[in-house]
């Protein structure tokens, strides 16, 4: 018996997977619905088009997916079930996600602003997760975004992606840039494939499109048409929709900056702004009603310097150098020494990381018996008082406005409120003080201990400098002789 090349057709079985139905025939790959007796979850088989004379990009793109997908994990990526041998029949079997991609929403455009922002938060969160796994997607567009029933965005199709720790087969194989014309970032057009901020540009195109029904750079697939985005700025959304919120225009136009360095440094920071519209620092971007005059655009077109600075290599260290740092500030009386120590600790971190941002958090504790959640006049002024107090606390840090946000959380349990905030906002590092009063700590439990134990990020517990006269500091006699410890 000879090893016949297995056929991909309905009814055939490959490595135990029965092919049920063809669900998609694309230019690069075919998708089949498949089943296996021992598996109940719905599955898809993706196979590249490897016919004679076929597009070699189909094969290389598929090889990239074969390398990248099995290395990814988490809710934002389809789960991989099997990878087929390339020599016989290359395929990838993955979970079939329910529902349709974001592409199906195109007929509903433009969407309400709040919905656009909500979609943006979900995609940015997925991108943040992907970037932390060293993958740059490089083909973010509506048809590559799906959603789980639980709401999380799932990014599909990694055929054009770049993995920071694996060979980039696409880069050498093809001289022309690959991507989807309306969504491709300027640097991608110039052949740069290792800048995470390219994905933020594509997401910016998607947000612009979904909120205005207009694609910011058109649909041209010709090189000259695509390259216009290197020098021609998009029509400000406010010109298309007069009621366009300035905060959203600020965010979208920042994503669409030609220079990657002028965009958000990380997807997490973009998600943060999209989820806190009232805290978005508005700049000239938010006010723009018209494009730059043509003379200005043309000057940009022939300015070599701009083109060159784009080609500067992307930084793989973007996330670690642009963290979101949170600090939990207790505004109760008597916290002054602790709050000074917190500020000092925050200042040290921020001084070394110019792209880091700081979120100051305070918890407004609700009594357990208080069921009246609605903010009465008194409650609202309490909120505002605390926001003012947080800004006052942060003032000596002298941070530029776009690096600082303040948040008052209302909660029965402060530790839980802080943990929720840390998770929802993809905080990288939280600073908080240890309660000094042991009586209070016994009564209330230690917030810092709970946060330190359960937070998914780095936690620094800060204590005020010891004063030496409160019985905590050892006296010289107790401490023993100074100097290096001997071999006792």
């Amino acid at each position: 018996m000879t090893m016949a090349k297995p056929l991909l057709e309905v009814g055939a079985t490959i490595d135990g997977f029965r092919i049920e139905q063809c669900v998609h025939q694309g230019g690069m790959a075919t998708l089949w619905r498949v089943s296996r007796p021992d598996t109940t979850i719905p599955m898809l088989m993706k196979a590249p088009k490897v016919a004679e004379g076929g597009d070699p990009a189909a094969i290389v793109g598929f090889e990239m997916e074969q390398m990248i997908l099995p290395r990814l994990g988490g809710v934002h990526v389809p789960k991989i079930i099997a990878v087929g041998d390339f020599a016989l029949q290359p395929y990838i079997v993955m979970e079939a996600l329910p529902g349709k991609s974001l592409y199906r929403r195109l007929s509903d455009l433009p969407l309400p602003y709040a919905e656009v922002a909500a979609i943006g938060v979900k995609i940015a969160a997925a991108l943040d997760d992907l970037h932390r796994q060293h993958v740059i997607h490089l083909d973010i567009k509506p048809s590559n975004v799906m959603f789980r029933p639980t709401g999380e965005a799932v990014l599909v199709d990694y055929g054009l992606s770049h993995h920071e720790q694996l060979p980039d087969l696409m880069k050498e194989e093809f001289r022309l840039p690959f991507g989807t014309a309306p969504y491709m970032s300027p640097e991608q057009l110039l052949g740069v494939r290792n800048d995470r901020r390219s994905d933020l540009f594509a997401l910016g195109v998607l947000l612009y499109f979904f909120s205005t029904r207009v694609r910011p750079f058109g649909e041209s697939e010709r090189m000259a048409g695509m390259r216009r985005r290197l020098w021609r700025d998009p029509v400000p959304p406010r010109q298309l929709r007069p009621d366009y919120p300035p905060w959203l225009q600020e965010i979208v136009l920042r994503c669409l900056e030609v220079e990657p360095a002028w965009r958000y440094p990380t997807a997490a920071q973009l998600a943060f702004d999209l989820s806190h519209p009232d805290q978005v620092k508005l700049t000239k971007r938010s006010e723009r009603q018209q494009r730059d005059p043509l003379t200005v655009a043309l000057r940009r077109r022939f300015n070599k310097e701009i083109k060159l600075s784009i080609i500067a290599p992307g930084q793989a260290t973007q996330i670690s150098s642009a963290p979101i740092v949170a600090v939990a500030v207790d505004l109760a009386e008597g916290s002054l020494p602790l709050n000074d120590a917190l500020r000092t600790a925050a200042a040290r971190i921020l001084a070394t990381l110019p792209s880091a941002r700081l979120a100051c958090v305070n918890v407004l504790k609700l009594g357990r018996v208080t069921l009246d959640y609605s903010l009465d006049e008194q409650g609202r002024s309490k909120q505002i008082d605390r926001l003012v107090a947080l800004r006052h606390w942060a003032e000596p840090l002298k941070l530029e406005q776009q690096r600082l946000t303040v948040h008052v959380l209302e909660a029965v349990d402060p530790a839980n409120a802080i943990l929720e905030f840390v998770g929802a906002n993809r905080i990288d590092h939280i600073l908080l003080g240890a309660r000094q009063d042991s009586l209070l700590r016994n009564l209330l439990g230690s917030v810092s201990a709970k946060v330190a134990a359960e937070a998914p990020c780095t936690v620094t517990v800060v204590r005020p400098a010891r004063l030496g006269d409160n019985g905590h500091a050892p006296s010289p006699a107790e401490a023993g002789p100074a100097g290096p410890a001997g071999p006792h």
Partner: protein
Amino acid sequence: MRIALFADIHANQQAFAACLAQARELGAARYVLLGDYVGYGADPEWTVTTVMDLVDKGAMAVRGNHDNALGAPNETLNLEAKVVIEWTRNELGPAERQFLTALPLTLSEDDRLYVHSDASKPSRWRYVTSPDDAAQSLFATTARITFCGHVHRPQLYTVGPGGSVTAFTPMTGSPIPLLPGRRWLAVLGAVGQPRDGIPSASYAVLDTARRELIYCRAPYDVEEAAARIRKKGLPGSLADRLALGK
């Protein structure tokens, strides 16, 4: 199965011992030695007897240009290397010298080729430092994966169906799937004298079941290795460069 591959040990006992210990911890069940066991370092005798012992137990070993120079005084080497090889010749017994000079230039196993310099002309000791160099080697063999050393800087090349060669500088400890649809040339870093700016000893582990290659680094006592080079009266620059990894 996991195969540990070592190139350019160059008589650095501290580095080689650290690599062997780490590879054992990683579950390596087989060893491949890609040449240049001597030259530059202070412990040729220990190194060669260790290699002979490994080969006795089933390891595969090929000959490098420094090993070759022991039996071929006309071998072109730089001045420092020449000085050390003359010294090495007296450090080794006849059995060890005979072992090194009799090693084959290439060895094959399954779909893999082992060679010190490159597959196109193993006895010419060509350096693979660019995709063009890699292409020459890749097109000179039908082996799916070629392993070599000689350059002292880790690099991975691959050629796909389109025919163009991709170069990639591997990250330490990050497994790279060697896709079966393409061919690969893995240039290993040096165990005994790394030149990629990182002082720790460089080697690689191939997982044949998962078809993954992992480039590894083993930290070792660089000061001790350098001190021994000086103590033996070998050129001081050979000791200095170990701490710099160049």
